């Protein structure tokens, strides 16, 4: 799937040496020496070495690696909180490492919002004032920034908390403020530095889900750093895997799971092979809502709206799956004053048995975004499988191994 999407950020040959004679370290690197030898010979750390990748417009790119892999350095090179030693970072035609002080400020304001691992909220400012920070820095007038920040807080579910101070909020809520601060700023790229790593697992899952929903809604170009495979697989459109300051593999979660580039990646996702014995049933979720064949189109449409779906599965009274009703088909049915749904159903979706290996489900998703229907031998609807759940199960299997 070589890309037709426009490139937002182009990173080429990016390296970072921590030390006073970076040239020397890079020379040694070019002679084929690795990080530990360079450290021994020069006392300098090769933080990043020759990193190249693209971030596409509107995608959620995960940069993943263990501690020491250079992922935090990498994200800080993007907005130049850390100066890189060599290489290009081009965003909308501007090469960030070469920008002067003023142009850099302008570039940061226009292009980057950042969310931090430990939230980095300003303790002396209220939630509202924190959310306004980026706008205030840019000199947006008071009434306007209040309105925008208010909207951003609503969006992350913090309406009504405007006047609280960060230390009055739980960790999850604090990070929502961090997210609101980033969203209010409306820069073109969202940088998230281990944004959910400090949260406890349940809250973390929630935040991931919300980020995905936001992402679907806003299509904001996002670079997300994590050390957690599960997180990377369940939220990333694509993943850049780092090890010791070098890129090991770049690919979609599916590619990483199914075609690991080398032993390191293989070890990383070790046990995910057990996915072959994982089945659709393990990733299946109960159907949140469905329609009966005896329902009118209005009822069906109403239910879709209630659960914000754009299609709904239709069953008969024994829960046998008859087909899928799409929202526009339902509207058509209303226009044509039909009282039965049967004529408007489509069969253009996948149905699998609960025993279907999870691995096979990957391929099915690329076609349509409908959840896969899981049915028993008598075509009774047992549940649905969504993409995130498959990846989640695979990742979990990897961890348990």
């Amino acid at each position, binding site marked *: 799937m070589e890309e037709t999407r426009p490139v937002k950020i182009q990173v080429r040959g990016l390296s970072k040496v921590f030390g006073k004679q970076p040239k020397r370290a890079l020379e040694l690197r070019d002679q084929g020496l690795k990080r530990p030898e360079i450290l021994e010979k020069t006392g300098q750390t090769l933080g990043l070495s020759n990193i190249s990748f693209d971030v596409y417009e509107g995608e959620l790119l995960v940069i993943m690696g263990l501690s020491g892999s250079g992922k935090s350095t990498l994200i*800080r090179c993007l*907005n130049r*909180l850390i100066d890189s030693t060599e290489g290009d970072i081009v965003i909308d035609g501007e090469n960030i490492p070469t920008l002067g002080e003023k142009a850099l*400020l*302008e*570039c*940061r*304001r226009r292009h*980057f*919002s*950042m969310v*931090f691992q*430990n939230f*980095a909220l*300003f*303790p*002396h400012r209220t939630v509202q004032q924190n959310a306004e*920070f*980026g706008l*205030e*820095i*840019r000199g947006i007038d008071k009434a306007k920034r209040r309105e925008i920040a208010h909207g951003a807080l609503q969006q992350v579910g913090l309406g009504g908390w405007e006047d609280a*101070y960060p230390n009055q909020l739980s960790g999850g809520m604090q990070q929502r403020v961090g997210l609101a*601060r980033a969203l209010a*700023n409306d820069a073109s790229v969202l*940088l998230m530095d281990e944004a959910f790593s400090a949260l406890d697992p349940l809250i973390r899952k929630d935040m991931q889900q919300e980020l995905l929903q936001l992402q679907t809604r806003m299509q904001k170009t996002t670079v997300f750093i994590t050390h957690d495979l599960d997180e990377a697989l369940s939220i990333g459109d694509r993943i850049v895997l780092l090890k010791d300051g070098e890129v090991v593999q770049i690919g979609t979660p599916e590619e990483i799971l199914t075609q690991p580039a080398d032993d390191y990646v293989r070890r990383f996702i070790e046990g995910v092979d057990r996915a072959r014995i994982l089945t659709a049933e393990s990733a299946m979720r109960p159907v949140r809502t469905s329609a009966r064949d005896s329902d009118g189109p209005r009822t069906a449409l109403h239910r879709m709206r209630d659960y914000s779906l754009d299609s709904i599965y239709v069953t008969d009274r024994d829960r046998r799956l008859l087909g899928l009703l799409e929202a526009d088909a339902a509207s058509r049915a209303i226009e044509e004053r039909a009282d039965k749904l049967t004529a408007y159903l489509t069969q253009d979706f996948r149905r699998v048995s609960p025993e279907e290996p999870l691995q096979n489900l990957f391929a099915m998703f690329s076609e349509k975004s409908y959840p896969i229907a899981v049915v028993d031998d008598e075509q009774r609807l047992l549940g649905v499988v969504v993409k995130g759940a498959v990846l989640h199960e695979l990742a979990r299997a990897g961890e348990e191994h």
Partner: protein
Amino acid sequence: MDIPRIPLGSWIESGLRWLTSEYSVVTRGISRFTQSGIDGLNDGLMWLPDWALMALIALLCWRLASVRLAIGAVAGLALIWNLGLWNPMIETLTLVVIATLVAVVIALPIGIVAALSERLYRVIMPVLDFMQTMPAFVYLIPAIPFFGIGAVSAIFATVIFSMPPAIRFTTLGIRQVPTELIEAADAYGATRGQKLFKVQLPLSLPTVMAGINQTIMLALSMVVIAAMIGADGLGSEVWRAIQRLRPGDGFEAGIAVVILAMLLDRLTQSLRKSRR
């Protein structure tokens, strides 16, 4: 072996003499300006009826701190009044207020600069060590040729003696701001000025206030010592008691100093705590 004595003292003296003659216009200007400040504040405080000033201070204590402090303030001030030390107390208060103001106005920018520049930090810190460890009396001596006997010399010596903690605490406060918050400000494209005024200074305010509190305390102790070069106030009461060997009078004036010190300390500390 006969190693000649290094004439450090005479070097310093000729240096000071040169400064005095060369910059007499400047020192006289400063002197006049400071003196008028002192007189203005002193006259203002004296012009108020004693009871009104007392009520005003009590009100301040109550609003900024607590009812308890307000009651304590009234009791303490009443005692000073009763001992007949009201006017010397006002004179001392004036000197402390003016000296602290001058010290803080000089200290804040220096502290900020020292926090932001590693090089200046390395220059400024030894100077502060010098200023703080040099016996306080020594500052009184050059003050006289500069500004003559009296209140202005007292202010000069007091400012030098009491300024270091305000500088140190300002530097410390700014350096203590978590790097993550600095990163956050940078990431959103804040200029140096925005970073300083929106993040670094507000977050270091409690520490800066602690420094100012220390400065006030040092200023008070120095203002008392400055009685030796003719500064009026509680110090000169103590000085007179020493010369006449009257321990009773000495202690009365000393207790008045303690009351004033506690009052100023509690007030500035509550100011610090009331901030977030």
